[in-house]
């Protein structure tokens, strides 16, 4: 991810200014920034492990991890192109594709060749051409940052839970631990939450891209009006809520029935 989606990676860590020996923020609370302030988002509180982010991403504690500001505004020291320059190149690429199609239709072989060469030179920035300003390349940082931490915390919780279960089983004492069963039941919905947080990290963090650098979400979306989307959402919400109630009632009934033959069946 650090290599192919550096912006997502920086957003996950709320890393605005890139650095060598970048630390990993284990726990952090973000200040409530003004939304228009897209070039910084400071921590109100944080606990971090020095060098760890650089080591994890590039297996080198001294490696440079670019921040959100470096990627959006550019950083000549590390050879990072600014988003506005990429947008310019993207617009050139899009125009070259149009010229190519026109030249091809007119059977103009020189024009086709020239347009193709311009397109190939700028192809890696094609998607940027659909954007208008640099800040559009930054995903919602807060949501990405917190979702990632919630997911990881839950992941560690599940590991602890399973280790506990294993220990109790090996000591043959698990049936006496009512508190443990309660904890296990409470943890069931946490698995769904962890999964949702994971999806939020990956899908919110990748914005604005559907295909990294080549196709932004605004060009991929279907031409459907807001009303239709709202109706569809309501339909999904109603039907799935009804089915969820049915599912839970069926399960509770079976749990109340209990296992047959003292669980031997």
């Amino acid at each position: 991810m650090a290599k192919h989606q550096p912006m997502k990676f920086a957003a996950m860590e709320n890393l605005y200014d890139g650095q060598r020996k970048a630390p990993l923020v284990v726990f952090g609370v973000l200040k409530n920034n003004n939304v228009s302030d897209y070039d910084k988002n400071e921590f109100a509180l944080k606990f971090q492990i020095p060098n760890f982010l650089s080591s994890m991403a590039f297996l080198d504690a001294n490696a440079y991890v670019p921040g959100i500001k470096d990627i959006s505004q550019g950083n000549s020291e590390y050879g990072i192109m600014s988003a506005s320059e990429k947008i310019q190149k993207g617009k050139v690429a899009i125009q070259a594709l149009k010229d190519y199609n026109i030249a091809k239709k007119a059977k103009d072989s020189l024009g086709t060749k020239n347009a193709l060469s311009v397109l190939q030179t700028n192809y890696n920035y094609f998607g940027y051409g659909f954007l208008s300003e640099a800040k559009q390349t930054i995903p919602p940082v807060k949501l990405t940052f917190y979702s990632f931490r919630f997911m990881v915390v839950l992941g560690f919780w599940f590991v602890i839970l399973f280790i506990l279960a294993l220990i109790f089983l090996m000591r043959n004492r698990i049936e006496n631990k009512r508190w443990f069963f309660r904890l296990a039941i409470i943890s069931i919905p946490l698995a769904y939450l962890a999964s949702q947080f994971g999806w939020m990290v990956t899908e919110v963090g990748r914005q604005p891209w559907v295909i990294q650098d080549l196709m932004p979400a605004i060009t991929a979306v279907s031409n459907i009006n807001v009303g239709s989307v709202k109706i569809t959402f309501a339909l999904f919400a109603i039907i799935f809520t009804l089915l969820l109630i049915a599912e839970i009632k069926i399960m509770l009934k079976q749990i109340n029935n209990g296992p047959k033959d003292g669980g031997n069946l």
Partner: protein
Amino acid sequence: MFDTLSYTALQQYWWILVSLLGSILVFLLFVQGGQSLIYQLGKSDTNRTIIINTIGSKWEFTFTTLVTFGGAFFASFPLFYSTSFGGAYWVWIIILFAFIIQAVAYEFRSKPENFLGKQVFDAFLFLNGLLSTVLLGAAVSTFFTGSSFIIDSDRHSQWTLATRGLEAALNIQNLSLGLAVFFLSRVLACLYFLKTINSTEIIEKTKKQLIYNAIPFLVFFLLFTFLLMLKDGFAVNPASGEVFMQPYKYFHNLIEMPVVAVLFLGGVVLVLSGIILPVFSFEKNGEKGIWFSGFGTVLAVFSLFLLAGFNNTSFYPSVADLQSSLTIANSSSSRYTLTAMSYVSLIIPFVLIYIVYVWRIINRKKVDISELENEHIY
């Protein structure tokens, strides 16, 4: 081996695969036909459960074939997928919901404390049987009648009617194919029940329903075929890619592709034989009908897809802007993608063998009342 094929050959290979999946899907819609017959064939609760148990072990075949059909279409002809699914939005959303409630109905209907009650889940099954067959049939018919969309130079599509695909149901030809598929699915379900259910009461009713549904099926199918042969079709100039209207295009396609004509006529004859055999000699041929009609359905639908896509024809024509019409040449994935996917497609025969194997195990014994006492109940 696929690397040496031309781009055109790859596109044709994938059109054949999509056509094959579509035709197997229509055969498997007998599950939906069975669901729309539960009230007529299963008056008592026990009989209804026997019927639902018979198709309950098969609904996943239809469901996964539908998903595979959609997935193959998406991967091989993505411009069709984005145009149709984003454009004819409400048709596809209704089909989607019809399948959501179906899957759950099978799992929940017989469970205690299922909140909505058995009647509601049975109604879900009936709704799925009605809506999915009519709408899928009507949607396939738009391959011949056209839809209202525009595609711009960036390949962004826009549907021009606010009804978002539902307008297709107002066209007599689309409606006749939709209803033909609906009644065909019921005919196939009857033939399937004759083969698999062991209950005199249900079998007697099924024999009657076979005739009641075969007649409207024939009427609507012949009406559709008649209109198809007479109508102007969406032809493509292979040199320029320009789309134009050609009188009797689909009739010409049949004549110019004799193999397709043979497949189509052979399919129709087999479907009819499958219906006629059990009607006239039930004792001897009652259980064979489903194989004749089922195989015939696959052949007939397969050849309809080939009529829509081959011989320089636009398979997803636009009546709003003729030059926006989609052909297998202008809507396919890149050569690279098609080549890679073609290698993956080599596993299809193994999947089919597995399906046949599982199917035979499930059907080893006829379904009767004893199954409800001893085995899994849907």
